[in-house]
């Protein structure tokens, strides 16, 4: 990789790169994204490496470990270019056959292709698979094309073209104008208009300003930022450099959760490459504009995703939020004006510059422009990452792309927006998803987590789960949040234990009202959403717990009873080994006895039994 001395030099290199790359070269893209890594993608990639070598194909076939290919449910995914044959559930044992049949003889391995869970239609090519057909990718566009560790790959996909354009053709003011006109709103949760934020920062009289990329991704159930940071790290950098140029900052920071070691590694490598190539440093492409980026690792605190808490922790203090105003755009890191945006927000920026504000503004709805990435998880058939225009309906996302819930499962709710969001019931499935409509039903967009729940989820348990999560994560600075969460948790625990009263529900409503109006930061203010939305839409579940001491979803432990069915028990003792309190006893190969007095209702025996002999009611 040369050091680019000018924009023309970059153009010239890009031309050479295009000439050098053979579009017909066979490529094997093994997905090593967040969904495939835990299913052994590294072993699949190793098997390909070995098999290609064995067949003398190392030079001819390019092997890449790429970012998320979207359909994580079918991990490990492998995509073969240029034909775009998409294989599912690939294991190392499948690799020799793929090499022999597809790479050497151009045949499709039929047993590895996609089968639709409903219609049983089978598709070999990515473009035909309904999951991909219904999407429009802007942010995820390069994830299943490039090797995240190759700057050449990024350049070949038009990378750093946006940076070139702003340096050559646009004044900082025009860049802000373009982002403003595009209608881009923050993807980290709040949905604040990005252009307006930049303008506030640019208009301050301070000399020193900062850029921050918020890669804390604390919402459980959301992993799009991880997928992008790992799969397309240069896009994050390019967005930030353009932002730095626009507001007049010379330094940027990426704040990454410490649970994401691979994201840190990939971003660090990308930063080194960008410095070496002259996209970062004191004099970028000899334009006179200088900008550099450093990585800050999080230390494990959900509240540090909140911008003022994040800034406090970058200054060496504990992550306590502070009241706004002043907003970080006016007074942020070290008291200087700071633009802080989410990972996905940053990645949209180069696309807007390249394609134009009007192109972006034409996607989406009146007040929510562009696309949004959702992580579709939970009780849905095709879990993974999807990207759709704003305004797509929940039904289209969950049923059209996600393939519905699978046989025998009934849709109960979809939870959006993480711990600050709410549970949306079936009657709103046709809701178009944008910032405002989600708010109108008591949830929020949040970072784009979408957790589908079926009849095996208990809504009281879900509310309790989020409250206990937030209780643990509340920084404790302000009283409504600290005390409110504690009491909500107490009341929910009473209900779950069968000691609840209907009057508790009113008390909870009262607590929610105080918390949402009097907490300092978004954590406390929106902590009430999971409680309020479940109380509003699933009141009968609360009442069943309180009045009948019943948890119909069979989740709330104190209300359950485990027994062993003498008909099916084989006496294998799997449950005996698992039980932590020794509540199960008996002789090997004879029916086991379960002592209700001792049982703590953990359900381990239920999960351990291979014969479904442990029953729960």
């Amino acid at each position, binding site marked *: 990789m040369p050091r680019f001395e000018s924009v023309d030099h970059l153009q010239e290199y890009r031309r050479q790169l295009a000439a050098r790359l053979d579009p017909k070269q066979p490529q094997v893209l093994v997905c090593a994204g*967040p*969904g495939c*890594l*835990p*299913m052994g993608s590294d072993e699949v990639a190793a098997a390909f490496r070995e098999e290609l070598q064995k067949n003398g194909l190392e030079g001819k076939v390019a092997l890449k470990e790429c970012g998320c290919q979207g359909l*994580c*449910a079918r*991990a490990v995914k492998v995509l073969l270019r240029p034909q775009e044959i998409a294989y599912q559930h690939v294991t190392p044992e499948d690799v020799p056959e793929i090499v022999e049949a597809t790479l050497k003889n151009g045949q499709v391995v039929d047993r590895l292709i996609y089968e639709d869970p409903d219609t049983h239609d089978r598709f070999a090519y990515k473009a035909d698979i309904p999951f991909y057909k219904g999407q429009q990718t802007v942010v995820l566009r390069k994830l299943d094309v490039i090797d995240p560790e190759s700057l050449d790959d990024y350049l070949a996909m038009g990378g750093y073209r946006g940076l070139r354009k702003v340096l050559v053709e646009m004044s900082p003011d025009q860049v802000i104008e373009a982002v403003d006109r595009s209608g881009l709103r923050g993807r980290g949760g709040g949905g604040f208009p990005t252009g307006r934020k930049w303008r506030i920062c640019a208009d301050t009289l301070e000399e020193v300003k900062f850029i921050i990329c918020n890669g804390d*991704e*604390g*919402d*459980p*159930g*959301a*992993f799009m930022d*991880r997928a992008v940071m790992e799969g397309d790290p240069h896009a994050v950098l390019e967005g930030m450099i353009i932002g730095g140029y626009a507001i007049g900052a010379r330094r940027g920071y990426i704040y990454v959760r*410490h*649970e*994401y*070691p691979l994201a840190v590694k990939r971003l660090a490598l990308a930063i080194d490459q960008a410095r070496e190539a002259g996209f970062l440093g004191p004099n970028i492409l000899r334009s006179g504009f200088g900008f550099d980026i450093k990585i*800050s*690792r999080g*230390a*494990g*605190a959900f509240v540090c995703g909140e911008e003022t808490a994040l800034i406090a*922790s*970058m*200054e*060496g*203090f*504990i*992550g306590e939020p502070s009241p706004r105003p002043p907003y970080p755009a006016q007074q942020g890191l*070290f008291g200087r004006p700071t633009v802080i945006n989410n990972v996905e927000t940053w990645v949209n920026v180069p696309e807007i510059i390249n394609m134009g504000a009007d192109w972006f503004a034409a996607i989406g709805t009146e007040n929510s422009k562009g696309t949004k990435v959702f*992580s579709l*998880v*939970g*009780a849905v058939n095709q*879990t*993974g990452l999807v990207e759709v225009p704003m305004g797509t309906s929940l039904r289209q996302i969950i049923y059209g792309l996600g393939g519905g819930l699978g046989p025998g499962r009934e849709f109960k709710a979809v*939870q959006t927006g*993480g711990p600050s969001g709410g549970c949306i019931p079936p009657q709103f499935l046709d809701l178009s998803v944008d910032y405002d409509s989600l708010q109108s039903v008591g949830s929020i967009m949040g970072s784009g987590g979408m*957790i589908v*729940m079926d009849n*095996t*989820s208990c809504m009281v348990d*879900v509310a309790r*789960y*989020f409250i206990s*999560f937030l209780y643990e*994560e509340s*920084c404790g600075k302000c009283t409504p949040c600290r005390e409110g969460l504690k009491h909500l948790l107490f009341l929910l625990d009473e209900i779950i234990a069968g000691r609840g009263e209907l009057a508790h529900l009113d008390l909870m409503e009262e607590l929610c009202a105080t918390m949402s109006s009097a907490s300092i930061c978004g954590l406390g203010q929106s902590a009430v959403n999971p409680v309020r939305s479940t109380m509003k839409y699933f009141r009968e579940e609360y009442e069943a717990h309180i009045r009948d001491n019943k948890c119909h979803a069979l989740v709330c432990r104190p209300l359950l009873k485990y027994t062993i069915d003498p008909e099916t028990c084989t006496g294998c003792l*799997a449950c005996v080994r*698992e039980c*932590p309190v020794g509540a199960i006893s008996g002789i090997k190969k004879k029916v086991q006895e379960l002592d209700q007095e001792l049982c703590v209702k*953990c*359900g*381990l025996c239920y*999960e*351990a039994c*291979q014969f479904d002999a442990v029953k729960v009611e």
Partner: protein
Amino acid sequence: MDAQRLDSILSRYECDPWDLIPVLQDIQDSYSYLPKEELQEVSQRLNVPLTQIFSVATFFKMFSLVPKGRHQVKVCLGTTCHLRGGTRLMESLSNRLGVEPGYTTKDMEFSLETVGCLGSCAQAPVMMVDDKYFGRTSVDKVPKILKLYK
């Protein structure tokens, strides 16, 4: 105190007060905990009061004031994993290792921890041992996974 080891960490920084968290992270990574004497030294070198260091060290989940085990076992209790039996997975690990989450086994082999979300929600329930992820785990797979590290 291992002065050389600490020096090699501090030499990567300008030793400004705002370097505190990255310095503590490096110490945590290198020592598997934050030893008291090292913290006193950091307090002097970075010019940060020891009280602030302790408040930071106890606020963030990644820091530990006691030594951790050879392997870090993390069980995800994020929303998706919670709905898919993450709690049971955690309890099974806790039984087998004989420690509560947040603690280390007596032989210093395993530290057990719970986390908010590991970002692999599509494969819930998820657990991690050191840098390796395990997806679609269940109680009956626990013994096999632990065996890899014994």
